[in-house]
């Protein structure tokens, strides 16, 4: 073997080792999601200012409503892609006691405000739902958020009903609506 580079056998071992690492670290998922809220657990209350106005709101103020709490950021492409669909869900179920609450966690609100302005212009109406701003990321920390975005379906008593990791696709959006229908009963 020439000095200075790995022989084919060593390279094969290297690839095998990388494969084993990948398989083993799949198990890391179980550690990563430990401690996350589960269905039936009471959602921790929070008080946050509005994103577009200074009015504060707490989760307790929404007791009696089914709440879809969505944690998003303007730097998260998939968060922005699903926003219009989630606002449509608010318009569909808003009169039946449903509230869509979008909590933005940007370090500075300017980009989020600009996004909402553009969304409003595109939809030709004011963005639906309750828009809050969490600069200190209190909600993601309290809820041990493990993905961006994450949405929490909270029932009328303020308990977690379901947690959705990642953004909604067309198929998972249909499943979300089914879950909301179930929660509104």
């Amino acid at each position: 073997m020439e000095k200075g580079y790995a022989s084919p056998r060593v390279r094969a071992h290297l690839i095998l080792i990388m494969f084993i690492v990948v398989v083993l670290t799949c198990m890391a998922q179980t550690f990563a999601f430990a401690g996350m809220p589960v269905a039936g657990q009471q959602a921790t209350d929070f008080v946050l200012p509005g994103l577009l106005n200074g009015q504060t709101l707490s989760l307790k103020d929404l007791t009696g409503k089914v709440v879809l709490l969505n944690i998003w950021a303007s730097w998260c492409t998939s968060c922005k892609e699903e926003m219009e669909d989630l606002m449509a869900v608010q318009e569909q179920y808003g009169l039946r006691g449903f509230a869509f609450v979008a909590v933005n966690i940007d370090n500075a609100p300017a980009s989020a405000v600009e996004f909402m302005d553009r969304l409003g212009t595109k939809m030709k109406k004011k963005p639906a739902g309750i828009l809050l701003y969490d600069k200190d990321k209190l909600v993601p920390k309290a809820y041990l958020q493990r993905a961006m975005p994450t949405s929490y379906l909270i029932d009328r008593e303020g308990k977690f009903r379901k947690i959705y990791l990642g953004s909604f696709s067309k198929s998972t959006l249909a499943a979300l609506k089914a879950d909301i229908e179930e929660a509104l009963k």
Partner: protein
Amino acid sequence: MTRKILALLVACMLLPVWPVLADKPRDGMSYVFSFYGDTGNNLVIAPSVLLSKKLTDTYYLGANLGVDAITSATKKAPTAPAPPTSGEEDEEDGGAFTYRVPLSLYLTYDKDNDTVTGGGYYSYETTYIGRSLFAAYTRRMNLNNTSLGIAYSQSFDYWIPDRTLPTDNRSERTLDLSVTQLLSPRQTVQFTYTALRSEGFLAQPTDQLVEYTPPLYAQYPDNRKGSAYAVRFITLLNEPTSLHILYRYYRDDWHIQSDTVNIELYRDISTSVVLGARYRYYEQSAAFFAKPLDAYTRSDTLIAVNYRMYAFHSNTVGMMAIIKPSKSFLSRFDADKVKLKLSADVFNTSSHPNIQYQYKTDHLTGIFTTIALDYDF
């Protein structure tokens, strides 16, 4: 024909256009215009279009198509003394373009923490055919703090020269292994190992020592094994400024060793403009068969002519800009989906007698620029 083959000196022959994998495959297009020119009178004008289209929630189709116009003036190529003529001046061929058409197609599967890409590359020009297959797999772990990547490519290129070569084939395979780890919300590091193996006719068919009759052509070993080890580090110095540092060590069984250091600084000038600057230093040693040009004889089985087989160093400095056009400028488009990326770099090699021999200039200075317009669907 000689001119066309000489033009290959500035043509990309082997590398597939590698999709740069970020957190999610792009769903968009890029229009790219690249330019290269150097004091060896090599010019490349390379417009291209890159498309990455989301087919379903998990599948993306990518295609890159370009046309490279390449020119190399004959005066830079050493030629044998012309026979006596009637006194009329020979017309000097110069600057005619040859064309190379590269195309690559790839499919990406992206779901949860896995991204798999597979595809092929093909390039055509009258004197060289490039073909390769490639595949890449990325696994994200630890809530996207850690990424493991493995990529493999195999090329099956061949020459179409105007002289008989020991073999017309030229193949290369590369294996890339990488680990990326976030160190903090402001720092990340990446380690990459690359194994390369080349086989076939690895010299340039037109590299020759013209003092001999017939000329002594360059002849390299018919296989080559190399390894590269690189570390990259990015840190946010303060909110608007990031620093990138790269170090790469390369060595192969031709006894070529090299060190590469690349430093880049980026700064947000405004919410829509990022400016950057870079410095790159490269230094390498000589191949074991590299000798002074006048030391070669017909009994030598391995002959190097191109300066790349010799010890030299180079410096590159450059400027970059990433611009998001303002909403008013792009009233018909979503300004969030458009980005303009500009770069201009100047490189300068050290002096070398082989550069003087081939290019009639003691060192090479070149400039390369890229303009890319990204549009997301």
